């Protein structure tokens, strides 16, 4: 099977769905590139090159550059979704969604409910998230817990090129608003991706690796660190399961609880800040529903409760890594009830 980058996998997903369904449109800043200027059209393909080639294939009516006004074009996308289009709006950084909270929280997420199920909102909002690119505190946050908190939104965080393509196709075919978050450090990672279209369902965790001693739960880029930690630990004789929920809403509670019960030790890795984050949320579910199976306290490996620092050494210290994950697993394995 062909090896493709995370970026290429997303680009293929957009091509497949735009070919399949003329109602799928793409809008955002520089998704075509060159609009309103004398520059070359399709020069950019979005700030991260994900939409490259769509303008040529599908034309300016379906690939629309917008002004730098996230509140306006996210609101327009939500309204367009209600008319029967299937818009995919691209936001450069999830950090900028703050100016669109009313459009997302109060409008898109509520339409289905406030119109008695008669309106659907097949809207996808793609945005990058995550630290590690020296982009400082306003371009580096992992804000998925905020969207996970709001009923009516689905939240997707792919960790591999395979999942990126299948989850984006699923997101576009889904009739509810989906917040689709791409860790910008992963764009050039490579993996096996089928050439054809396929879906990855929401609410089904991926068992990345199986081991009986502990379960490491991780999302997005953290899955790679969790795997790395599991390799280090395997050499020490500690076998870990690595579980990637893939979507935080809906969340695959069944598999989380099954793995917690099988291994009795759980370490949750979260690039988000610790308060009200996914690590806190998942640990509360396991503590409530699988308490009897636990052999050790649930361990959380998260970013600290600070903005993302700009200084490279501090930013590196901010992001959870394989060493911290392995340490947490060792601590769980060594735990003895007194």
């Amino acid at each position, binding site marked *: *099977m062909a090896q493709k980058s995370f970026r290429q996998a997303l680009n293929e997903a957009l091509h497949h769905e735009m070919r399949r369904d003329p109602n799928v449109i793409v809008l955002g800043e520089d998704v075509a590139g060159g609009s309103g200027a004398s520059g070359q059209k399709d020069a950019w393909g979005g700030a991260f090159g994900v939409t490259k080639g769509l303008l040529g294939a599908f034309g300016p009516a379906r690939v629309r550059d917008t002004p730098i006004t996230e509140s306006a074009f996210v609101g327009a996308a939500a309204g367009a979704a209600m008319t029967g289009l299937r818009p995919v709006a691209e936001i450069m950084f999830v950090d900028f969604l703050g100016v669109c909270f009313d459009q997302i929280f109060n409008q898109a997420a509520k339409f289905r409910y406030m119109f008695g199920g008669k309106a659907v909102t097949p809207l996808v909002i793609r945005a990058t998230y995550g630290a590690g690119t020296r982009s400082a505190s306003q371009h580096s946050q992992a804000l998925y817990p905020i969207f996970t908190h709001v009923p009516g939104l689905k939240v997707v965080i792919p960790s591999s090129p*395979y999942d990126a393509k*299948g989850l984006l196709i699923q997101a576009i075919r889904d009739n509810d608003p989906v917040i689709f978050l791409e860790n910008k450090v992963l764009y050039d990672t490579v993996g096996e991706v*089928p050439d*054809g*279209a*396929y*879906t*990855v*369902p929401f609410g*089904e965790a*991926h*068992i990345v690796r*199986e081991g009986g001693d502990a379960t490491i739960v991780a999302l997005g880029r953290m899955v790679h660190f969790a795997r790395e930690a599991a390799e280090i630990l395997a050499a020490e*004789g500690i076998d870990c399961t690595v579980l990637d929920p893939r979507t935080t809403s809906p969340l695959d509670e*069944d*598999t989380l609880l099954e793995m917690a019960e099988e291994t009795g030790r759980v370490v949750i890795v979260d690039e988000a800040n610790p308060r009200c984050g996914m690590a806190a949320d998942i640990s509360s579910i396991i503590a409530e529903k699988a308490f009897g199976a636990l052999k050790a306290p649930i361990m959380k490996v998260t970013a600290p409760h600070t903005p993302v620092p700009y200084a490279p050494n501090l930013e590196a210290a901010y992001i959870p890594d394989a060493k911290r994950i392995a340490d947490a697993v060792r601590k769980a394995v060594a735990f003895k009830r007194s």
Partner: protein
Amino acid sequence: MSDRIQAITMPKWGMTMTEGKLAGWLAGEGADIAAGQEIMEVETEKITNVVESQAPGRLRKIVVSEGATAPVGALLAVLAAEDVSDSDVEAFIASYADRAGSAAADADDAPKARIVQAGAHRFKVLSLGSGGVPAVLIHGFGGDGGTWLFNQDTLAQNRLVHVIDLPAHGDSEPTVPSGKVADIAGAVLELFAALDIEKAHLIGHSLGGAVALAIAQASPQRVQSLSLIAPAGIGSEISALYIDGFLAAERRKPMKEVLSLLFADPQGMNAEMVENVLRFKRLDGVPEALAAIVSHLMADGKQVIDLRAVLDGKIPALVIWGEADQIIPANQSDGLPAGIDVARLAGAGHMPMMEEAAQVNRLVTAHLGKAEG
């Protein structure tokens, strides 16, 4: 090198395997090993299986200890006759170490699967070996060429062996919209032309067995021999629980339950196996293609294709069945005409070529040899 000293090496199961973990030694140093005796358990990212010794001898030295990982082809242990000196054994090990570097280079030269255009069809084909009458391995319903992970290498030791993905399976495109077995067989015959195959040994599993029978029915002159493993098409009973469950399962848990019916001991299954089947089923067009095949294969929970008469003894045929098969019962091999070889394997379910790989390899190798007379 004297054949009084034999190397036990890391096997290669499928094209993506580059290394394996020695999960356990099933015999200790000093033990006398018979040919065909289970000697070790090897684990890869995809699968765990026992490996049998090809040759008899005393297990003189274990080179790779339990829990360690070694590249494909690496020396794991040495078998030698009792009277071979320790220094000769050590010299053998040293000579192997010198060759270790070349194994890595071989990995890049490993044969790669290709897409072969055959009329309207595009088949994924992985070809190994050379010479002899070629063999074509045809997997079952919902499977792919990976079915023959433990078999292709061994069978390719003295002939060209093609592993194919049937249309709408694995990496082959869904080019047989009718889903009829006869049409699938026709597509495979077009592939014969594209691969310049005059005549082949057909080795088919389950639905692939029915496809092999349909090819033999349509063009008996193209078939040197048949090796049918738990074939469809020669009896009426089939597990609707499995077939309907496979079509319906969209998530890991139900799919795991369905797939566990394939094996006498489902412990050998892992999450990746389930994930790979789900990935296949989630491709656009696949559920429809699978449903079309089933619509011609079964009605009211019974098989409706009857190719049993093809087994009339004119084409040499071997039928292998696992006694614990929960998909198609092994007793469908009862009452076949004289001259059809039947082997029933006690330890296997519906997947004997994986569950009892070494036995199946021996049986098929002997059968192909005999059929070439």
